[in-house]
């Protein structure tokens, strides 16, 4: 999946048809809004077109030019809002921020208003201006719904955290992965992985835990004198 805005030209039929969706992967059309102009970055508005909101992406297709269309996946939409402040933008619109592959060039909009070369991958702001402003709230809500349908794929994988908080837990978790006898675990320190250094394979928490062992060698002399009868 490409991050950011991209060109979209796959339409059904010959005329200003609907976008071709990825139905095999469950993409469905959620909402169609005709009469919408699109504003990319600081460029002039491109009008008029039709907005297609699907379960996966936002697609805008020009009503005038059949080859002109843009799309952005919801995974790339960092935020969206209803903008009604005339100082921010003269027309009420849906304002969106788009996350791009390369976040270093925040200020460069990727296009020269003089010439036509447009680098969509650098567009970080997009406005959708409906000819009917009363539609803004419902558009905002649909955006919300669809954004919620598209959480980051990584977030769903985090089932096990594998964090260690006690020696007991260590014995359960590491017995299988380590291949080392538990009793050896506690007393030995792997010289390949010195204290405090995690090479990515070694569990840092385990190294730290190994330091906290109640080993008589580490006891203060006074305590041992007083505690000769105490058990450990």
């Amino acid at each position: 999946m490409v991050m950011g805005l991209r060109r979209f030209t796959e339409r059904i039929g010959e005329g200003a048809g609907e976008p071709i969706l990825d139905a095999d992967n469950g993409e469905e059309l959620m909402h169609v809004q005709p009469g919408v102009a699109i504003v990319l970055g600081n460029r002039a508005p491109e009008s008029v077109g039709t907005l297609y909101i699907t379960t996966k992406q936002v697609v805008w297709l020009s009503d005038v030019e059949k080859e002109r269309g843009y799309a952005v996946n919801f995974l790339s939409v960092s935020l969206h809002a209803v903008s009604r402040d005339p100082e921010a933008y003269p027309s009420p619109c849906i304002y969106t921020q788009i996350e791009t592959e390369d976040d270093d060039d925040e200020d460069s909009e990727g296009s020269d208003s003089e010439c036509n070369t447009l680098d969509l991958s650098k567009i970080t702001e997009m406005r959708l201006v409906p000819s009917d402003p009363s539609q803004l709230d419902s558009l905002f809500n649909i955006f919300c719904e669809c954004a919620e349908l598209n959480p980051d794929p990584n977030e769903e994988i985090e089932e096990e955290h594998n964090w260690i908080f006690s020696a007991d837990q260590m014995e359960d978790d590491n017995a299988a992965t380590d291949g080392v006898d538990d009793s050896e675990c506690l007393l030995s320190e792997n010289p390949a992985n010195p204290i405090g250094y995690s090479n990515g394979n070694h569990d840092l928490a385990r190294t730290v835990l190994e330091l906290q062992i109640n080993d008589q060698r580490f006891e203060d002399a006074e305590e041992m004198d007083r505690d000769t009868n105490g058990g450990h």
Partner: protein
Amino acid sequence: MLFFSYFKDLVGREVTVELKNDLAIRGTLHSVDQYLNIKLENTRVVDQEKYPHLLSVRNCFIRGSVVRYVQLPPEGVDIELLHDATRREARDG
């Protein structure tokens, strides 16, 4: 689910959300979901000179994955409670 529960309790309070792209937005927490997507009301941008386009939007939806920090009102934070809950959550998974 800890932070989801925690943020649900903060609904109605003023928070400032700082995004990974450095944008900071202040507003009233309207709602939050399990992915920590955040909806704010009465939002205004913290650094208006740098981000004039967002001067004042009434509602905004912020994708959970782009949030760097959520700055909380001090009176909305019970540190002891948060510590205990975090420890429990991490232990129990």
